């Protein structure tokens, strides 16, 4: 297949994942703001904008935080370089550019969802429909993955798409964890105030892991459990360890198809070594923040190795 097409598929799925993750965070903040008093509610919105790395852009525009300002900023504001509307537009234009490498089912899902979202996001989103908009964004991801699963050849195109998904998801989980890492440090976990409980809950909700961890831990959630779950739990599809293994499998499949390994597979093995047999105590020994910074950097170098090994660009 064409290098440009591989690049298009990879980014189509990165943007799809990014939009989906952003929508999850928005949903978590919305939920938190509904269950806390006004002051803390606005603080939740500040924190989410900060997690998205857009505090400066937001504050250049608005003097204070509120739900309405924040979700419109996240969903559709052109002054926010990471707004969801632009991400979805990228998903759709990449899909259009690789139209003959994806199935009609997948294309139709992406095209229809974009048309619906474009309409929903053409004007300010109010309290009454922000929930619908977020659901529509999340549903796009679900439908696209479903359409792909059921209709696409397991050839190169599939693997490049999946690489995009897992790289982006690992990145996103690491970024969320890093913004809140101080809440999860062992020294603080002993405090265990109700505020901290709420914060852990928030972190879990950002990656839709609240139900899963409650189920696994029988309702007993502490900081250590949250960190272990999000970094190392191989059962949870948004944990760093899970995304890492999934990426490794996709890269191995690509190497098999191409009959040779490249720089990508070498970097992946190095990254593997860091994660194998790692325990949460080991992570805390390295320092959670340091671990996450390392991981994100290694992720970024794998992404650029994929682009050069498979000739994404000239």
């Amino acid at each position: 297949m064409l290098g440009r097409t591989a690049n298009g598929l990879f980014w189509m799925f990165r943007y799809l994942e990014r939009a989906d993750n952003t929508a999850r965070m928005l949903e978590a903040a919305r939920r938190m703001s509904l269950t806390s008093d006004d002051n803390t509610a606005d603080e939740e919105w500040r924190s989410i904008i900060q997690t998205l790395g857009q505090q400066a852009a937001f504050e250049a525009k608005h003097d204070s935080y509120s739900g309405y300002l924040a979700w419109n900023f996240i969903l559709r504001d052109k002054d926010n370089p990471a707004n969801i509307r632009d991400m979805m537009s990228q998903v759709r234009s990449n899909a259009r550019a690789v139209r003959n490498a994806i199935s009609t089912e997948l294309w139709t899902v992406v095209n229809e969802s974009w048309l619906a979202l474009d309409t929903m996001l053409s004007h300010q989103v109010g309290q009454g429909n922000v929930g619908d908009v977020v659901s529509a964004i999340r549903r796009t991801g679900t439908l696209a993955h479903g359409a792909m699963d059921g209709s696409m050849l397991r050839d190169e195109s599939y693997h490049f798409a999946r690489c995009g998904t897992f790289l982006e998801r690992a990145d996103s989980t690491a970024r969320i964890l890093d913004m809140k890492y101080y809440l999860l440090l062992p020294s603080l976990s002993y405090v265990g105030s109700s505020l901290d409980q709420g914060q852990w809950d928030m972190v879990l909700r950002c990656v839709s892991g609240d139900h899963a961890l409650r189920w696994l831990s029988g309702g007993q959630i502490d900081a250590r459990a949250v960190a272990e779950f999000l970094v190392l739990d191989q059962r949870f599809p948004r944990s760093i360890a899970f995304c890492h293994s999934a990426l490794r499998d996709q890269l191995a499949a690509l190497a098999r198809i191409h009959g040779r390994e490249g720089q990508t597979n070498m970097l992946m093995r190095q990254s593997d070594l860091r994660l194998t047999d790692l325990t949460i105590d080991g992570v805390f020994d390295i320092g959670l923040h340091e671990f996450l910074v390392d991981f994100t950097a290694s992720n970024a170098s794998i992404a650029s190795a994929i682009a050069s090994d498979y000739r994404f660009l000239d």
Partner: protein
Amino acid sequence: MLQLRNARLARCKGSRVTSNDPAKFDEMYAPDGSVRPAYRGYQQWLSEQDEGWLRRKDFEAESFFRKTGITFNVYGEDDAEERLIPFDMVPRIVTGGEWRRLSKGIEQRVRALNAFMHDLYHRQEIIRSGRLPERLFRDNSAWLPQMVGFTPPGGVYTHIVGIDLVRTGPNDFFVLEDNARTPSGVSYMLENRETMMAMFPELFSEVRVETVSNYPQRLARSLAASAPPATKGKPVVAVLTPGIYNSAYFEHAFLADQMGAELVEGSDLRVVDGRVAMRTTRGYTPVDVIYRRVDDDYLDPLSFNPDSALGVPGIMDVYRAGGVTIANAPGTGICDDKAIYSFMPEIVEFYTGQKPLLPNVETWRCADSDSRAYVLDNLAELVVKEVHGSGGYGMLVGPAASKREIANFRKKIEANPTNYIAQPTLALSTCPIFTSQGLTPRHVDLRPFVLVSPNGIDITPGGLTRVALKKGSLVVNSSQGGGTKDTWVLKE
């Protein structure tokens, strides 16, 4: 030509062609209100359908097209804007007998076009014989000196041709335009049929219609048969597109997908070891046949427009050395020239030794002083076109134009007469369209698609029917608000 003048094309006398114009031919209904043979099966089915249900179906069709992403971008408007070409659900129906006659005429014309291209780039016998004035190609930017003395693989110049036909009476079909540069619209022929079959499956069991859905396979076969000498093994075919902002991008992607070919942009290609190669995830691999949807001018910055980023530097050298097939061949755009068109009866006769089976529309060349005088005296009744124009841009429809528009056009013609030709305002046949008030007639044309390979000429039974949706309008181009219909050729 004389015979044609006598046949006298029904010309519009009043300020507008109205739907009651007695000179007008309707595809579905005879003047006495009876249904023509081609439409009997359809009429039977239609009379059994509930109107409310049909209205709902009509509404569904639009959302079907939008979902599928069958859109085009309009030149001169916001890049991001994608429009739908309106689809009308009443088919344009041609009988098997009519189609047989049309096919013969089309085949003859396309054969002549290919012979003409070869001659124009070699001995130029037609000019030596005095049948065609030399100025027609000498100052014509569509004629490419780079093609002189070179014969494309298999001798094929026009791999894909769209012949625009109009009808004015039961047996009166005329060629309105030849499209040999990069004819578009074939995806609508295919998607319109898919839509009709999805909406009205039972209709297709009641009326037997020739299939069009194998067009992409026919195209793939035809292109592969035109592979260059350098081909090793099974020919690799790629569709070259200017990219996602091109007005016909949907079609480029659609055809590549349906043919199982790669969809490439100029930036994916480069010349490697004397071949044109595409950048795959494994490195550069040779392409044998390029179905290009990029204009000549942008094909090769080394040979043509040096600023083009859409093409492939050096592709013309590879082409001339037999390393790649470019379809259509560079320099075939001259067939689309409307001054050349006016000589088509002579061209057909010169190369085939036969009278044209399909007549031209009477055409006045403003370059000739007698014709120019006639045209300037009759602007209000004529259609005037730029010789290099296309897509319905830059034309004057006299009967529908204001005094000011006519006056402006007069100045343009006087300033640059060789740039214009004029034709009578034809009473194009009408075909009913579906509206909330029921069926109502609108003017249509027909573009069949013709494939040429060293193995022969292959015409898919069907085509693109374009319909002017505004009452009385004669301009069917999608860029000017025209719509499309499914086109049926009945099985015999």
